[in-house]
């Protein structure tokens, strides 16, 4: 492990990034996630969760079992927003960018 070693390949987070946030007081995986986006990429923390948690455990002398599992919310996958739409796909939403603005 050196400073440039990637710890989260999806979001390009390095070991040096991790050290920075740990010295700011990060103690859980989710703390690291919020600072660095570690775990927010396409694999959704599958590659980095235990790797980072083990590094936190070693650095901060916290047992691995005391580092909570990462809080995973809907959606569990990176999906296009459009794919969440229901049947009313054909109805566009009028916005200030639409033609025929009220003040014209």
């Amino acid at each position, binding site marked *: 492990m050196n400073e440039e*070693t990637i710890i989260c390949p999806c979001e390009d987070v390095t070991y040096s990034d991790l050290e920075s946030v740990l010295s700011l007081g990060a103690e859980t995986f989710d703390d690291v996630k919020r600072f660095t986006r570690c775990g927010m990429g396409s694999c959704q923390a599958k*590659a980095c969760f235990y790797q980072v948690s083990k590094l936190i455990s070693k650095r901060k002398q916290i047992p691995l079992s005391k580092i909570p599992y990462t809080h995973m919310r809907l959606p*569990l996958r990176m999906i296009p927003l459009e794919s*969440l739409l229901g049947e009313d796909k054909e109805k566009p939403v009028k916005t200030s960018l639409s033609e025929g603005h009220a003040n014209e």
Partner: protein
Amino acid sequence: MDCDVCIIGGGPSGLAAAWQAGKTGLSVIIVDENQMLGGQLKQQRQPIQNLPDIFTNQQLTGFELAHELIHLIEPYDIKPLTGFSFIGVEADGTIGVNNGRETRKIRAKCIIVATGAAEEPILFPGWTLPGSFSIGAMQILINREKIVPGRTAVMIGSSSRTCQVASEMQQAGIIIAGVIEEKAKFDCSPSDLQHLKKLNIPLFAGVSKIRAEGEEEVENIHFKAGDGKEQSINTELVCIDGGLSPVVESNFILGYQLQFNSDLGNWIPSYDSCFHTSAPNVFVAGNAAGITSHGAILITGLIAGLSAAEALGKYSNKETVSKQRKKWWNELKTVEMAYDSTVYQARIQHVKQFEQLKIKQMS
């Protein structure tokens, strides 16, 4: 879509669970994010050891077992929904699945989480260089995609999985230039070790300071051997075996508690002897319930499927169900003790701990 049982994951445990639930007449939907059912079995060529009794006298490789399971579920009301990922639930418990283009909703009375496991990397400088693969990815490439991604390879890790994949890589024409292991001793069986030695593959245990280097891709790997000497091996590929971890990303969404158990893969759902989690009508099966062998993975699926059918009132005779479940737990014991007794002991403790907690909560 409405169904009795929704199974998340169509690998061996999901298919086994689907079979048990489906044969009682329940309607089942299996959601799998891959285009085909079978999970990791699809790229596995080795003969599967210690299959449960339902497969007696059959010598099946991984992909043959996948075909067998897919065939088993055909006569029943079991609908595979492939290419879809489970993404979340609505407030009333309706399941949302998405394939990147549309979202479909599933209303189910029971859910079985059969999401399997994900591979762990090993972190070292250069581990993300092109040419670096997990052993699972390598197995998919050479067995399913029929691609040989390089001419030489160094394996990092020494489990029986690694030995198996190294052997397959060799058969595909890749020269295994070394097997390096950070632990003091190799993980694989003595016979696997003998096999590697016979093939004159350089073996190094107790290594440290691993680093892969190369201009734009892996060209060589350096490390400190167990005797303190610096070693270098020229190689195009690096194959990493960091072990497996259970996939339990749905815990918060489905509302099941996790319990840490380092012998079962760390965070896994709490479950009782029915493989019922702490969330009502949510069961778990397979590697998601603890990293184990193929035979055990299948049996946990059978127990979960049976228990889901029982929960939905499909068995009027409680005795029959208890007997069958007990019989499968005995098979699980035999199969898992043969694989790794620590895993079985840990599983028993895990179930006991949860069952005692439930008793405490009720009183």
